[in-house]
């Protein structure tokens, strides 16, 4: 009776469950989520419009010229035909009509919306890209190396280097060089000595842990979160020259905290997972563990927050432009179209409603898509199949 059974699992399995790759499984769940699907569709349309918009509104003689002023044709309502008697041939709207009307300078709102779409898209993606990069970097460090303590040693070194660098920056070369050389010498020394068997009192004091990397980074996150971010951005923008790139960078650098927290939490829990322990036991290096084992498993929530973050960045940019702090005038953005239109809200409501509606739809689509992603990537939901 107790005959040894060779391990032949696959052979004795009755009709097996159909095999699905992770991608197929993702699609299957995604297709069930109508709202997320709608969000994705709108996002794709927006993307195509924005890219197309860039190509038809830029260059020296763009097909849709968003900056072309036709003073006699100001505040024409949407879908109105151009008055051929007052226009020279080059001023004709390309579609034979003002699709979204014209503004107070007679500029074609449709062209301006097209140009603004590209601005919104790039601001959203670049700003979130910066935020995600900083977030993954700091969150990853806090999560993986968090327990490493920062010793008084390190603080001393940091002060030396900072002092040297700032001396350089303010033009005093000599003290700068001295301080930097001191820093390098110090670094070299501590790298050489390793851990002495019985450190002297002074050395022991230098080796004393002041705080941990995790505490340092996470308290910095807390400090950043203390500022009302919109006003922080306003301050920074007021100091910097107004340009579309500065806006992207500033929005990005003030919105990475959420991602940092996510990534840290994910790393902390992943670090305790058995497969990470197994990789360590196999002698896999730190770098490979982080990039092959941890980051791929941590991206899901980051992706979700990034998608929702794009919506936030687009809103912030529109808000800044509306207040006049955003992308400078020759560029049209949805925010400054809205801003310009507010003076004519009763005479020309389309100037307010068209960009407002566009912002609403795009932001909504990103939020829906992001929440759909969250539902799908939620492990509790996935475990059922």
């Amino acid at each position, binding site marked *: *009776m*107790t005959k040894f059974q060779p391990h032949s699992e696959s052979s*004795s399995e*009755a*009709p097996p469950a159909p095999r699905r790759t992770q991608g197929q499984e993702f699609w299957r769940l995604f297709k*069930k989520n109508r709202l997320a699907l709608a969000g994705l569709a709108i996002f794709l349309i927006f993307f195509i419009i924005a890219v197309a918009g860039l190509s038809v509104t830029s260059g020296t003689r763009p097909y849709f010229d968003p900056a072309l002023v036709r003073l006699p044709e100001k505040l024409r309502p949407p879908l109105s035909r151009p008055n051929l008697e007052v226009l020279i041939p080059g001023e004709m709207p390309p579609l034979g009509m003002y699709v979204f009307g014209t503004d107070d300078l007679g500029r074609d709102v449709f062209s301006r919306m097209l140009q603004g779409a590209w601005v919104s898209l790039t601001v959203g993606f670049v700003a979130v890209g910066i935020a995600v990069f900083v977030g993954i970097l700091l969150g990853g460090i806090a999560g993986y190396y968090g327990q490493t303590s920062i010793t008084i040693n390190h603080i001393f070194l940091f002060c030396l280097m900072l002092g040297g660098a700032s001396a350089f920056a303010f033009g005093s070369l000599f003290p700068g060089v001295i301080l930097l050389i001191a820093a390098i010498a110090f670094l070299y020394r501590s790298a050489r000595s390793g851990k002495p068997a019985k450190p002297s009192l002074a050395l022991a004091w230098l080796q004393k842990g002041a705080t941990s990397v995790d505490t340092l980074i996470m308290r910095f996150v807390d400090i950043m979160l203390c500022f009302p971010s919109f006003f922080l951005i306003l301050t920074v923008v007021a100091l910097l020259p107004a340009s579309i790139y500065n806006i992207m960078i500033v929005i990005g650098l003030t919105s990475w905290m959420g991602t940092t927290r996510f990534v840290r939490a994910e790393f902390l829990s992943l670090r305790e997972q058995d497969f990470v322990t197994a990789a360590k036991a196999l002698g896999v290096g730190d770098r490979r563990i982080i990039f092959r084992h941890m980051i791929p498993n941590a991206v899901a929530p980051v992706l979700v927050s990034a998608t929702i973050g794009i919506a936030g960045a687009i809103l912030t940019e529109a808000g800044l432009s509306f207040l006049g702090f955003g992308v400078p005038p020759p560029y049209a953005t949805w925010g400054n179209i809205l801003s310009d239109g507010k003076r004519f809200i009763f005479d020309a409501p389309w100037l307010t409603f068209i960009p407002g509606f566009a912002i609403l739809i795009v932001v909504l689509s990103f939020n829906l898509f992001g929440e759909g992603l969250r539902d799908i990537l939620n492990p509790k939901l996935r475990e059922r199949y």
Partner: protein
Amino acid sequence: MSPLLSVQNLKVYFRGDETVARAIDGVSYEVHAGETVCLVGESGCGKTVSALTILGLIPRPPGEIAGGKIFFKGRSILGLKEEEFQQIRGKRIAMVFQEPMTSLNPVFTVGDQIKEAIMVHEAIADRQAHSRCVGLLKDVGIPSPEERLRDYPHQLSGGQRQRVMIAMALACNPNIVIADEPTTALDVTIQKQILNLFKELQKARDMSLLYITHDLNVVREIADCIYVMYAGIIVEQGKMEDLFEHARHPYTMGLLASLPHRAKRGRILYSIPGTVPDPAYKPGGCPFHPRCEHAAGICKKEFPEMCDYGDGHLSRCPVLYERTNTVTF
């Protein structure tokens, strides 16, 4: 004597997008007064689903009761309205869950939670409820019950939490306690305490116990009657001694033979090949046939009938029944 609880040909399906998982596919069992009945089976065999169905706790959808009847004290309870069910659930039939960490609400004291269990069903004064709580905790063997009532769940150890869960289940003197793997998350020494507690309580209160577990060694400690489940059906049933001494179904025989024990040292452990089938893709005929070493051609085609070995011992394996003279285990 009519049984206290009787489940007849119960079928519970879970509908997916493209598939139907037949979690329970025609299960019948009976619990008599004062008896301990064990449902044994591996994960995914439907033992927990069957218990949740008795208490009306199957989420619908995706779950659906595709057939069968459940009688409690001779009254059908499957079609009952939610309000009517409340009268039975917790009061006449109570449940103890596996995970003592998550089955207590962390923001209320132990006393509040036991009191709630009483006051949902009985209109009694707060004072009385309190003294009932103290009595209950004493019954389940918790030292200094007055103080423990003021504790929050996290202040108790795993074993004590499970005792509190049992106290809550006993709050309204139920006729049946359904215990779903109540000792699986506990250490052996604590498991022993809880099993002994169940035995004592059952004797003192004359209640029935429907005990669900995957651990055959635990079954051996407490069961009167055993139902072995596999892939949503009952493959063998009988009195405890009978089943352990003379298992008749290849699955039960395999399970018993594959239990590791130091007496089997040096010999290769018997193992049932293959894995438990996915409830959505069960093999036709006898669901055990792909893993069975006695499988014959008929097993692939026909769903096996229960074969009677007498004295309440039934086994769903006609092949072995025909060979019954030659098979000795």
